[in-house]
């Protein structure tokens, strides 16, 4: 019998449970403030309220309805895109990167940027390399486009980026698809909190250049958490300069999230930025991504763009915002320090954490998770581990949560 929905779509189910668990934890916490909600990839202030940057309040206090309620252009406003590029690559990026075009298009969040990058540069039946420990939505994005995920091991034995595994999987893709595309989430990898070192970048660049002697290589850098890396992302920004050593046969695509940097989670705003030395590729990017945007979401939040544009093009506001996000980033580091010190007392295994919103406890056990929930704390089951969102707890809760997890670990597995 013919059905309304094709079979392949009937098999599509959202695997991620984070948003549902997060809603549950938020609801419980509303009734009982003692509940520790470590589920959400949203930055909460110490008082438990969502972080609202001053620049955001400013726009809401002085709304220009003719700007914020009208349609944006398909690509997003030029001033927004210029502001984002300068924010990521520096005010002097055109001088600092004289051999590169940086084309950008506004997207609905980092998710939109990732989906657009896959849809634009890969065809159904091609493959994408994803880390074995990852935000599961990567897989959904790929399979939704009939692109096959191929997993590489994220960490080697020294808990560094596993270049040997990337090489092995990439060579398989070269044989199979005559193209390599991979996603790397850096800094503050979700869910582990790992941030790549300079050596990781140098090794990756050498490897991609080696691969690029055989086929084209697409490096998709998910930089959603850029501003929560070391010194509010300044170290990673220095690493980006190393990418100028990449062959022209490696195209780098950056996926930026305004949700994380500006706390505009619900406004759904991000950007996809292409770095290439080739005029032809630069032109193709502009036409193909514009086409995709028009055919899917049409255009993005004008309100979100207005907030970012107004903040980053006014030097005083930009400095104030830079200070605010540095404070938030440093506060997150303090939460991490307290939480990890507490975990270490109980010898709880966790993935190599450097900075960012999340810590991944390397325990895959239902009783362990239930034990934590019984004590009024919520994190998320995540792949083969348990993800704790430091972004949504405060400094008081951080060591308490570490103790709860430590005790649950000792009780169930210790």
């Amino acid at each position, binding site marked *: 019998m013919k059905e309304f929905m094709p079979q392949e779509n009937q098999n599509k189910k959202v695997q991620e449970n984070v948003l549902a668990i997060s809603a549950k934890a938020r609801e419980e916490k509303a009734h009982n403030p003692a509940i520790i909600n470590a589920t959400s990839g949203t930055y909460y202030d110490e008082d438990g309220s969502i972080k609202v940057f001053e620049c955001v309040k400013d726009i809401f206090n002085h709304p220009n309805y003719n700007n914020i309620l009208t349609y944006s252009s398909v690509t997003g406003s030029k001033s927004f895109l210029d502001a984002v590029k300068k924010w990521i690559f520096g005010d002097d990026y055109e001088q600092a990167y*004289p*051999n*590169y*075009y940086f084309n950008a298009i506004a997207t609905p969040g980092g998710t939109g940027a990732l989906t657009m990058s896959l849809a634009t540069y890969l065809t159904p039946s091609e493959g994408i390399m994803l880390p074995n420990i990852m935000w599961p939505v990567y897989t959904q994005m790929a399979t939704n486009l009939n692109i096959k995920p191929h997993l590489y091991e994220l960490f080697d034995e020294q808990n560094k980026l596993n270049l040997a595994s990337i090489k092995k999987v990439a060579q398989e893709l070269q044989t199979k698809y005559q193209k390599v595309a991979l996603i790397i989430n850096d800094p503050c990898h979700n869910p582990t909190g790992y941030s790549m070192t300079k050596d990781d970048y140098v090794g990756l660049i050498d490897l991609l*250049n*080696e691969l*690029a*002697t*055989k086929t*084209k290589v697409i490096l998709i850098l998910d930089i959603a958490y850029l501003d929560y890396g070391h010194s509010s992302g300044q170290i990673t920004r220095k690493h980006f300069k190393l990418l*100028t*050593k*990449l*062959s*022209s*046969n490696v195209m780098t695509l950056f996926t930026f999230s305004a949700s994380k940097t500006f706390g505009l989670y619900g406004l759904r705003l991000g950007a996809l930025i292409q770095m*290439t*030395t*080739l*005029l*032809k590729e*630069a032109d193709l990017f502009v036409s193909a991504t514009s086409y995709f945007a028009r055919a899917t979401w049409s255009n993005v939040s004008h309100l979100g763009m207005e907030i970012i544009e107004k903040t980053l093009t006014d030097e005083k506001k930009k400095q104030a915002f830079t200070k605010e996000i540095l404070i938030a980033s440093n506060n997150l580091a303090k939460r991490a320090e307290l939480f990890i010190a507490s975990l270490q007392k109980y010898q709880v295994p966790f993935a190599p954490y450097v900075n960012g919103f999340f810590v991944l406890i390397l325990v895959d056990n239902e009783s362990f998770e239930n034990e934590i929930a019984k004590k009024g704390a919520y994190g998320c089951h995540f792949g083969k581990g348990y993800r704790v969102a430091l972004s949504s707890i405060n400094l008081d809760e951080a060591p308490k949560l570490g103790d709860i997890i430590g005790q649950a670990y000792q009780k169930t597995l210790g």
Partner: protein
Amino acid sequence: MRIIIVGSSPVKTFFKKYQLNPSDYFIGVDGGALELLKKDIKPDLAIGDFDSTNDFEKVKKEAYEVKCYNPCKDETDLELAFKALENLKGATNLEIDVYDAIGGRLDHEFNAYLLLAKYKQYKIHLLDDKNEVLCLNKGQAVYLKKASCQYFSVFALESAVININNSLYNLENRLLKLFDTYAISNEPLNDHTRAIIEVKEGSIIVFINYK
């Protein structure tokens, strides 16, 4: 990143001399595309009329981009390669090494020198086993070590004012006119300091002969 352009002169230098840097950008000019492939390097761009290529099918299969022109054209294949440089962002600030474009037919060699002058906005080096030829414009300089440089010669592309220091025949703010030949066969003076050729005004072509 450097830009590597390989021509199809019968004097093959690229294969012997080039050390692979995978981040370089490779342009194969006509049969030069096959020279690249001999070293297992896929041309980023293969360009020309391919009238002197004995395996164009292989070029089409392996090169990332192929631009094939009718042989009845005004530009030489090498000029087409230089014209294509405008498709690379900031190519004027990259070093461009051109192999296998000199040492064969004299008309093609002369064409290469003319193109060097015509496209002097780029940092082009014409290379063979023992020689390097480049243009210098106002404000630019080149430094030469005695350990590697046997002779160097300088000619004007237009009226130029030049300095040459630490050499056998030094020049100070000296006018060098088109067709002047007195700045031929100079040498770095000693091992301790490098010879310096500086252009104060105009532009020159420099021939360096290596040991």
